[in-house]
């Protein structure tokens, strides 16, 4: 149990040398942009009408929970991606390194999304079984969730990796833009000391 908790802690911990506000900002950016792109595409293609509606407001609650799970997953993936990109000196890394670490971050996000989603589904099923339904509904739900996680893990890693690759390209372009706006980082003894010898 302690190992699981410590792994969860490691997954969401802030990498050394990376300010928490950057992880928070970029993770939120990734989650919001993913949802936004879907909505924008549906709006332009005329498919938005009724797409998210289930005829009642229950869809709003489910959508909110799904977004929170996506947000958490994005946070874990962004934190681990930034950590892999060079812990505090990612802005000096080569473009290909940043893009590949974006793919890694997407992979982490995909797996986190799947597992967190499974926990939420099981939790909701447990509450429903205890409050309104017979407890005998739980075993089928548990079996379905385990099967879902088994099959879903492949898609979660592939889709997460591909989305991470796109996010890596986008983030790199945004970073280059930010450098163009405020100017390149001055060469300082402290920054030089953190840069590995090539």
């Amino acid at each position, binding site marked *: 149990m302690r190992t699981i908790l410590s792994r969860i802690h490691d997954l969401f911990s802030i990498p050394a040398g990376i300010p928490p506000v*950057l992880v928070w900002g970029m993770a939120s950016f990734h989650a919001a942009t993913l949802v*936004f792109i879907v909505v924008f595409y549906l709006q332009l293609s*005329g498919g938005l009408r009724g797409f998210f509606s289930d005829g009642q407001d229950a869809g*709003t609650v489910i959508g909110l929970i799904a977004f929170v799970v996506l947000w958490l997953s994005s946070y874990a993936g962004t934190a681990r991606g930034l950590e892999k990109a060079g812990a505090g000196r990612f802005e000096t890394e080569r473009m290909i390194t940043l893009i590949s670490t974006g793919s890694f971050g997407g992979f982490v996000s995909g797996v986190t999304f799947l597992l967190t989603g499974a926990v939420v589904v099981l939790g909701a099923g447990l509450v429903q079984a205890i409050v309104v339904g017979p407890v005998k509904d739980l075993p089928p739900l548990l079996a379905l969730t385990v099967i879902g996680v088994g099959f879903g893990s492949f898609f979660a890693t592939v889709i997460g990796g591909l989305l991470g690759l796109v996010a890596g390209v986008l983030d790199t372009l945004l970073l280059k833009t930010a450098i163009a706006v405020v100017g390149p980082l001055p060469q300082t003894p402290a920054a030089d000391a953190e840069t590995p010898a090539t």
Partner: protein
Amino acid sequence: MAFLVRSVHVGSVTFILGGALLLVVVFYLHRTGPLTSTDVLLKLMEAYEYGFWAAIGLTVAPGVGNVAHFGDGLPGPDSTWGVRFTIKLALVAVLLALSAVRVLALHLVTRTPPEHRSGLRIANLQGLYGATAVVANGAGAVAIAMAHF
């Protein structure tokens, strides 16, 4: 429940608008009568970023809920409402990209030791917050037009 979710949506947008405007006012005051140090401004910017990105998440999720609430009654993209909604979404796209650049630029500046910041264009970073206020107000104006005109 629906009213609560819509309230979170509107409240979050209010923070985005008000926070950015507040920073612009502080920048103006800093120029006319400099504050103690640049660090004060950077801390203020950092605090805004925490709130801004929370507000973005709290705006996007209920925003989708708002769309879902319309169901099959949602006007098409060719209607007047639909065109305004497309414009609003385009402004949100600009806001998201601009804000990602902003938080990255803030990271670059804060990562640089104070004694080496003279080579950085910190005024441009302040300009990004001004641009945030302009774009967010534009999106807000379109949203008001969608609701009332």
